[in-house]
């Protein structure tokens, strides 16, 4: 079984939907330990992505769609999340190359490329209370699921679950990167907004692969 460009398009549509739905919640998380704009930033970026999907050509590859999405995010999100998600998806686009069908191993490579792109730009390590704390367990879980012979859908569901757990696990942490790092101990008890948006994005990826 494999996923094609339609999955990427569905993933982005679903992402736009859930980010709009969770705009206020992400904003509230960011207000607690940041500057309150994360929900607005993500919603603005994915609304632009959604608009851009209208004009995607029918024969676009998964990598082609991802590149367009990445460029849109870079030029619409702003803040820290824009370059981070943008670079991540750009790297994912590179990883997907010109393939038209993504098998399990390609899916894992794609997720790993996102994570590595984010780390490349943001230099955050695991445990520093950023979106990396959702991406890294997600990549690990995806890799394990693939090794265990799961389908692409199963791999994405494993990634989504791990990202969600990873986001939750940022709550007791002290932040070392981003705006929340200024809080010291006062960050404890609050979930990282970027880790939470990552969990939403990966849940959207799994939901878009519902039947795969």
């Amino acid at each position, binding site marked *: 079984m494999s996923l094609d460009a339609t999955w990427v398009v569905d993933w982005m549509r679903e992402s736009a939907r859930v980010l709009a739905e969770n705009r206020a919640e992400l*904003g509230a998380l960011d207000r607690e330990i940041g500057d*309150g704009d994360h929900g607005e930033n993500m919603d603005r970026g994915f609304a632009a992505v959604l608009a851009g999907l209208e004009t995607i050509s029918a024969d676009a590859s998964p990598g082609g769609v991802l590149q367009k999405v990445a460029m849109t995010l870079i030029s619409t999100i*702003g803040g820290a999340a824009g370059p981070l998600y943008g670079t991540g998806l750009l790297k994912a686009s590179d990883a997907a190359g010109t393939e038209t069908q993504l098998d399990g191993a390609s899916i894992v490579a794609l997720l790993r490329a996102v994570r590595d792109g984010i780390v490349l730009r943001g230099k955050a390590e695991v445990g520093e209370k950023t979106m990396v704390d959702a991406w890294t367990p997600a990549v690990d879980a995806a890799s394990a699921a693939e090794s265990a012979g799961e389908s692409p859908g199963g791999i994405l569901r494993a990634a989504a679950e791990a990202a969600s757990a990873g986001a939750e696990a940022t709550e007791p942490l002290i932040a070392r990167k981003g705006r929340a790092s*200024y809080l010291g101990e006062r960050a404890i008890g609050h979930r990282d907004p970027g880790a939470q948006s990552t969990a939403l994005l990966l849940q959207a990826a799994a939901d878009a692969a519902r039947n795969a």
Partner: protein
Amino acid sequence: MKKLINDARAVVDETLGGLAAAHSDILSVSFEPRYVARRGAPIAGKVALVSGGGSGHEPLHVGFVGRGMLDAAVPGAIFASPTPDLVFAATRAVDGGAGVLYLVKNYTGDVLNFETAADFAAGAGIRVESVLINDDVAVEDSSFTAGRRGIAGAVLVEKIAGAAAERGDDLDSVAAIARRVNASMRSMGVGLRAGVVPYSGEPSFTLDDEHIEFGIGIHGEPGRAVIPLEPADAIVDRLVTAITGDLPFVAGDRVLLLVNGLGGTPLSELYIVFRRAAQSLVERGLAVTRSLVGSFATSLEMQGVSITLLRLDDELLELWDAPVHTAALRWGC
């Protein structure tokens, strides 16, 4: 939420619309892509200065576009760094062939977006240098944080580097001056009441009537601690102690003292703060050689104040005094 706005999402564009209408002699506004450029830019042979960052801090940076200061400012959404394509568009619009200096406040978002813009510019054959502004001593500068934040000191860097570019310094020299200003200044602020972010309608933090945030950031980020509200003089003494101890500033130093309102603080309170700050610097043997009082780097309608101290030398003093003509700062012309 009680604001004189039309649509929360139109706040930045409509602010720029007013800016353009009020100051057409100084600047012009491009809405798509969105940036503010000095009238007459590009100026052939002059180093161009570009700054920017999230909106909500007006007049920073758009109010500092003009003769002797910025060639362009790139305002992002409220509290969100502008995207690289916009910074790049502004860069192209104002590059006069002598290179472009980016003045970037140290926030992850600003750093990353300006970095990408610099890559775009390099690709287009435009030489770009970047200077990070990180004057806020509230935040420890250590490997455990994203580093010191840039706050009101940005105004001083923009003014002085702008004057250096205006007198014809080359890119490396202007960048060196900007770095010298940044290295010679320290800031810190307190917040009494948060501004309300238009798109959420919520205050960016909440404090009861008896407490203030000591070391507040200009996005309402927390600082060192929530402390009880004290008389202004006691608060000022805390700020001055933190600031002077950090560089450190020492007896005999000539300094520029900037008392900056955060948006919702009346001018009378800024002068009350200035009064004690100046007294307390004099007690420490410093010479307050230049002064600036007003709301220059704000956080929507936040109530509070920040203090910035810059150690002056003859060259910085001369550049400070040089003519400037922007919407928010003007003298000598």
